[in-house]
């Protein structure tokens, strides 16, 4: 990790991180505009819901308070003004700052997503490697069928079944909520982790298969490197690169999938907040949560990219150019040889 920090200290890396952070701005702008415009086109208005039995005058006041008597752009502008100051607005329904609500829920969601990713990583990487190494055998086919099943199972369905089995029948784990410490996390994490695990096993396997075909593994074998070391040292580190990408995108997916899982298990995370807010047309909360999730995903992506650089020296060099993708024709050498 010292290695990692030294990479980050590198000046170009600084610039790169800054660029990435700046990239959040259009993301936030885009997401919020998107949500705002869509909200405006929706049938029915949250204020009608709140002001269920308000008098027309009270209603008008309410409309005015939230800027509903003006154009979307006005409201959007207002919202953005607040956003700059870290104010995501006040929930229509809960009447509290959205940021506060979000932050209250975030730790639970992070715990859930983290736990499921962890479970997925710990189980899928060895399994994927095993499958790749025994390519074409029963182990390979078996684990791939399992992975496919995991991928094909709607996870809310899995969650329901798990709850029936492990809570209702066996009383091993709580069926929901977040009041029983780590035990509360077990079923949701498995539910959410299954799909992730499936994808990751498949990715690990295919990336390992790719690497196994590479010439440099042959070079290593030709050196007399024992097979185990060949796989571990030469194979895995290279295979890790696509796996890391997957972990990044899967974490994003986990944050999304958490929405479903949290609702199956009445788990008090951001996902449940969002769904309740959606059900109540609490658009400002939805907007805020979406923005924060987008930011979170972008930040995770950033970390993944940095992790990349740790694993793949080729990418480290790319930071000097600030570009991830290397054009086919750009393989130019700057070094004069020393002969």
């Amino acid at each position, binding site marked *: 990790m010292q290695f990692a920090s030294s990479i980050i200290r590198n000046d170009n890396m600084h610039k790169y991180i800054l660029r990435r952070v700046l990239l959040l701005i259009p993301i936030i702008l885009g997401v919020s505009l998107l949500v705002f415009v869509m909200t405006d086109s929706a049938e029915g208005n949250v204020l009608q819901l709140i002001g269920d039995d308000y008098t027309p005058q009270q209603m008008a006041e309410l409309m005015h308070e939230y800027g509903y008597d003006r154009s979307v752009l006005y409201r959007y502008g207002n919202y953005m003004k607040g956003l700059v100051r870290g104010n995501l607005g006040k929930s229509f329904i809960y009447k509290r700052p959205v940021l506060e609500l979000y932050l209250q829920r975030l730790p639970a969601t992070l715990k859930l997503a983290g736990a499921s990713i962890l479970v997925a990583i710990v189980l899928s990487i060895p399994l994927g490697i095993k499958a790749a190494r025994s390519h074409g055998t029963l182990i390979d086919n078996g684990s791939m069928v399992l992975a496919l099943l995991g991928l094909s199972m709607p996870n809310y369905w899995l969650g329901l079944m798990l709850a029936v089995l492990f809570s209702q029948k066996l009383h091993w784990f709580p069926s929901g909520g977040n009041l029983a410490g780590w035990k509360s996390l077990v079923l949701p994490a498995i539910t959410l982790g299954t799909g992730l695990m499936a994808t990751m096993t498949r990715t690990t396997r295919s990336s390992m298969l790719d690497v196994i075909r590479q010439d440099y593994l*042959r070079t290593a074998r030709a050196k007399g490197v024992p097979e185990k070391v060949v796989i571990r040292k030469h194979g895995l*580190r290279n295979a890790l690169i696509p796996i890391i990408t997957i972990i990044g995108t899967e974490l994003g997916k986990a944050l999304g999938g958490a929405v479903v899982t949290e609702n199956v298990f009445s788990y008090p995370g951001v996902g449940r907040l969002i769904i309740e807010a959606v059900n109540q047309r609490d658009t400002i909360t939805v907007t805020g949560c979406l923005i924060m999730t987008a930011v979170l995903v972008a930040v995770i992506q950033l970390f993944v990219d940095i992790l990349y650089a740790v694993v793949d020296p080729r990418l480290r060099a790319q930071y000097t150019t600030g570009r991830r993708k290397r054009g086919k024709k750009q393989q130019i050498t700057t070094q004069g*040889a020393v002969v």
Partner: protein
Amino acid sequence: MNGTKQQNDIVLSIKDLTVHYEVDGEVVEAVNNLSLDLREGKVLGLVGETGAGKTTTALSILNLIPFPPGKIKSGEILLNGKNILAMNIAELERVRGKDVAMIFQDPMTSLNPVLTVVDQVMESILIHETSSKVEARERAIQMLETVGIAAERADEYPHQFSGGMKQRVVIAIALACNSRLLLADEPTTALDVTIQAQVLDLMLKLKEQFNTSMIFITHDLGVVAQVCDEVAVMYAGRIVERGTLEDVFNHTKHPYTEGLFNSLPSIEDRTARLRPIPGLMPDPTQLPLGCTFAPRCSYATEACINTRQTEIGFSESHFALCSRYAEKNFVIDRKEID
């Protein structure tokens, strides 16, 4: 050289090697009944067109044919008298990189992109010679300097090097443990002429320095002329002609070898029309019954098409696989050069 001495200094002896690849139910007969000997300190050039089976031969020597689909069907590969094909994996790992090392065709892909070059060079030293990291590193850096890579660049990664330098690193890896036998699989094909010249020069120097024997695989006859002592010409998995450089280049016997020379544009006579070998190499999954070259051969007779060639010796060192020489007065068009 007397007989016994000659026996003793044979580093590598391949006998009757046959390697097949089985893909989709089709059998690629990549190498067929191949035999050759290599003597200490000599460079054997293995030439032939794409798909002739050169790389397969080299990989067989390390017993590194990918399985599946590849399979060594028969034969014996004696390295310093020991049969590589009979070794178990532990023995093989001891031989690989130590007794026999290989330089691969494409320097761009044969280096591990996530390890520094010095790591990759010292790896074989650590496995075969010493367990001290410091010492291994020192020796690796020394090796890198020998191939012309400055010590301060030892901790860089392959992508920071140009093609020529990567090839030097590959060479350094191969030479790290002073193997007696070096297999060089088209080490310069991917390089520009000027860089190719540098690398060839380097390899020759190093060969002198360490007295290494070498199998030098290429399809460039010019390079062969430059670096090899002996030549074996492969066609469709068989060695069709072998001998000393002089034998093959100046006293060409096999019609295929002749065709190769005729296909080369000549530097002296630039207006002369080229005389290419007509047609294509046969599909390796459906090799012809008789002489594999017969369909393209202008000397071929009915007999050539139907029966396998036999090997004819012209001197102690010079052999060709052509049945026509059974006829008394058979000669090919290419003039002998003295």
